[in-house]
C-alpha cells in the first residue's frame, strides 16, 4: 500500500511535467499567444501581386503587429489577389485612407503586410476596403527593371 | 454422473497424435491420477480440460457442460470453479505471497479488504505458510511455491482442482507435505482432484483411481491395487520403474554395431 502511494505520486509528477512541457511548447514556443486576441474586425485589400504572402502572415503598422492575414483569394473580375485581414480590436482608430504594402522581413525572411496611416478623419471599420495598395516586390522583376533602365541610360 | 467426462479425444501437434481416442471419467469427490511418461501429453490434457486448448475431435464435459462449446464468458465462469496448480506454481512474481492468494478474490469478488484478509490467512494457514505471507515468490523454495499456489487455487472454493506434476523435483519432506495436503484438501473441502504425475509411489498413495497414458492411448485403468497386479508388461515396467522392458532403454533407430562400422554416415 505504501509503495502504491509513492507510485501514484511519481506518476502524478510525471504527468504534470509532461503537461507542463506541452503547455510551454504551446505558450512559449508557438504563436498561440497571437490567437487569443483575434476577435477584432476584418478589412480587405486588393494587391496586384502578393509574392509569398500566406494566410496568418503578420500585418504591422510602424513595426507593431496590428493584425493577421485571414484569407487570400483571387478576385474573379480583376484577377488581383484579394486579401482579408483580421485586425486586432484595440487598433480601431486607423484612418480610412490607410495604405497597405507587402514587404519582406530581411533578405530571406517571410513576407508581411505593412500599413501606413493616412489622414482621413474617419476610421476603418469591419468590411471596409483598403484602396491604396502596393504589390510585393518580386526579385526577378526588380532586377529586370534595373537592367533595362541601365541599358537605356547607357545609350 | 462423473464430474469430468472425456469422450473420443483426439489432439495433434503437427502430425503427431498426442491423444488418439481417449476416454476418461473423473468421479466426483475422488482423487483421480493420470500417469504416464514425460512428454505423453499430461499437461496438454489438463489444458484441454481447462479450455486453453481445443481438441481436434471428441468432447470434454465438465459438470455437464461441453467445455469447448461455451462462449468466452461462460468458459471464464466455469474456470472460476476449477483450480489448477501449474508445475512451476505460476505465482505472479510482482506480488508477494499474500497478494498472490488474494488475487483471485480481488479479481472476482467485491469483498471488503478485511474479509479478504481473513480468507487469505485461512487459506495460508491450511497450507502452513501464514507466516510467509510477506515473502516474495522468488524467495520461496519450490515446495513452498506449490503450497502457496495451492492456497491460491482453492481461494475461490472451486469444485475441482487439477495438479500438474505436484511432486516433481521435491525433497522427501515437502513431497510428504504435498501428498498430505492434496489428500486433506480433497476430503475436507469435498473437492474433486485430478493429479497428473509420473511419481508412482506418491501418486498411488492418494489416488482412488488411476489412468495410465502412453502413446496417445489409455493403456490401463483401475485402482492402485488393480494396476499393481496388471498382466500388462508395460504397466509393470512403469509401476515398478524398470529400466528396460516394452519401453526399450535405447531410443529406436539404427543398430549399434552398424553405427560403429559405418562412421561416415553420421556426417
Amino acid at each position: 500500500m505504501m509503495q502504491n502511494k509513492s507510485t501514484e505520486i511519481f506518476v502524478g509528477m510525471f504527468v504534470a511535467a509532461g503537461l507542463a512541457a506541452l503547455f510551454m511548447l504551446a505558450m512559449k514556443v508557438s504563436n498561440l499567444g497571437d490567437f487569443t486576441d483575434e476577435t477584432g474586425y476584418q478589412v480587405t485589400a486588393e494587391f496586384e501581386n502578393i509574392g509569398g504572402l500566406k494566410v496568418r502572415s503578420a500585418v504591422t503598422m510602424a513595426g507593431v503587429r496590428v493584425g493577421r492575414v485571414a484569407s487570400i483569394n483571387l478576385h474573379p473580375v480583376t484577377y488581383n489577389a484579394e486579401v482579408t485581414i483580421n485586425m486586432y480590436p484595440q487598433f480601431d482608430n486607423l484612418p480610412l485612407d490607410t495604405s497597405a504594402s507587402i514587404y519582406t522581413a530581411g533578405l530571406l525572411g517571410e513576407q508581411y503586410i505593412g500599413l501606413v496611416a493616412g489622414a482621413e478623419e474617419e476610421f476603418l471599420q469591419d468590411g471596409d476596403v483598403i484602396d491604396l495598395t502596393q504589390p510585393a516586390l518580386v526579385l526577378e522583376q526588380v532586377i529586370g527593371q534595373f537592367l533595362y533602365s541601365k541599358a537605356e541610360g547607357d545609350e | 454422473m462423473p464430474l469430468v467426462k472425456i469422450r473420443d479425444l483426439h489432439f495433434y501437434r503437427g502430425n503427431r497424435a498426442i491423444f488418439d481416442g481417449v476416454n476418461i471419467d473423473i468421479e466426483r469427490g475422488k482423487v483421480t491420477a493420470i500417469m504416464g511418461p514425460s512428454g505423453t501429453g499430461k499437461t496438454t490434457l489438463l489444458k484441454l480440460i481447462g479450455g486453453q486448448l481445443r481438441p481436434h475431435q471428441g468432447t470434454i464435459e465438465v459438470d455437464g457442460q461441453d467445455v469447448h462449446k461455451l462462449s468466452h464468458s461462460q468458459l471464464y465462469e466455469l474456470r472460476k470453479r476449477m483450480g489448477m496448480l501449474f508445475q512451476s506454481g505460476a505465482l505472479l512474481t510482482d506480488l508477494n505471497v499474500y497478494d498472490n492468494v488474494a488475487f483471485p478474490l480481488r479479481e472476482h469478488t467485491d469483498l471488503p479488504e478485511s474479509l479478504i484478509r481473513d480468507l487469505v490467512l485461512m487459506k495460508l494457514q491450511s497450507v502452513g505458510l501464514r507466516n510467509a505471507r510477506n515473502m516474495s515468490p522468488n524467495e520461496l523454495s519450490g515446495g513452498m511455491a506449490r503450497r502457496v499456489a495451492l492456497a491460491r487455487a482453492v481461494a475461490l472454493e472451486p469444485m475441482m482442482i487439477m495438479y500438474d506434476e505436484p511432486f516433481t523435483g521435491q525433497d522427501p519432506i515437502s513431497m510428504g507435505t504435498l501428498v498430505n495436503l492434496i489428500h486433506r484438501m480433497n476430503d475436507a473441502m469435498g473437492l474433486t482432484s485430478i493429479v497428473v504425475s509420473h511419481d508412482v509411489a506418491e501418486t498411488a498413495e492418494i489416488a482412488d483411481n488411476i489412468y495410465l497414458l502412453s502413446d496417445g492411448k489409455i493403456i490401463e485403468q483401475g485402482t492402485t491395487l488393480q494396476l499393481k497386479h496388471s498382466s500388462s508388461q508395460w504397466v509393470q515396467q512403469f509401476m515398478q520403474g524398470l529400466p528396460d522392458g516394452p519401453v526399450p532403454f535405447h531410443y529406436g533407430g539404427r543398430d549399434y554395431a552398424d553405427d560403429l562400422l559405418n562412421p561416415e554416415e553420421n556426417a
Partner: protein
Amino acid sequence: MINLIRSLGRWGLGTFERQGRAHLFLFNMLLGIPGLFLRFSLVVQQLFSVGVLSILIILISGLFVGMVLGLQGYNTLVDFGAEESLGVLVSLSLVRELGPVVSALLFAGRAGSALTAEIGLMKSTEQLSGMEMMAVDPIRRIIAPRFLAGIIAMPLLAAIFSAVGILGGFLVGHGLLGVDDGAFWSQMQAKTDLYDDILNGVIKSVVFGFVVTWIALFEGHDATPTSEGVGRATTRTVVHSAFAILGLDFVLTALMFGDE
C-alpha cells in the same frame, strides 16, 4: 531451387500468419481498454514503469540534442547573418521531428524492451496461463493497461524531450554563443505554429507510442517461452520498433507537412 521457393513460400505464409496474430492481438487489447477506466490504478502502475522510469534518459538526451542543435545551427546560420533564427531552427527541428522520433526510439529501447521481456517471462513461467485458469483474462488484466500507459506516456515524454531540448538550445545559443534572447524567442514564436507544428508533433508521438507499445507487447506475448526466445523477442522489439518509427515518420511527415 524448388527448396528455395518452398522456403520462400513458407516464410511468406509465416509472415502473414504473424501479421494476422498481431492484428487479432491488437483487437483484443483495444477491447480491453474500456474496462480500464473502472480500474485506472492498473494503468497508473504501468505509467510508473513505462513513463516515470523513462524520464531520466529522456531529460538527458533531450538536453544534449538541443545543445548540439544550438551549436550546429549557429555555425550554419552565422554565415548568412541569420543567427537570430536559431530559435526557429531549434524549435522546429525538435517539435516536428527530433522530439517525437528520438524519444520514441529511446522509449522503444528503454520501455519497449522491458515490456517484451516482462511479458515474455510471464509467459514462459506460465503466469499468463495460470491467470487464464483463474478466469482472469491476461490481455485485459496485464496487457491492456500497459498498452494504454504506453499511448499516454509517449506524447508526454516527447513533449518533455522537446521542451528540454529547446532550453538546451537556448542555453547554448544565448549563454554560450551570445544570440539575443529576445530574438531567439520571438522568432521562434513567429514561425512555430500551434497546429501545424506542435499539434502534429503530438499526433506523431501518439502514433509512435501506439505502435511501439503494440510491437513490444505482441513480441512478448508471441515469444517462444524459453530464455532464448524471450531474448530474441526483445531484440526484435527494438529493431522492428525502430523501423516502424522511421517509416511511419516519413509517411506522417509527408501527410502533415507535404502540402506547404
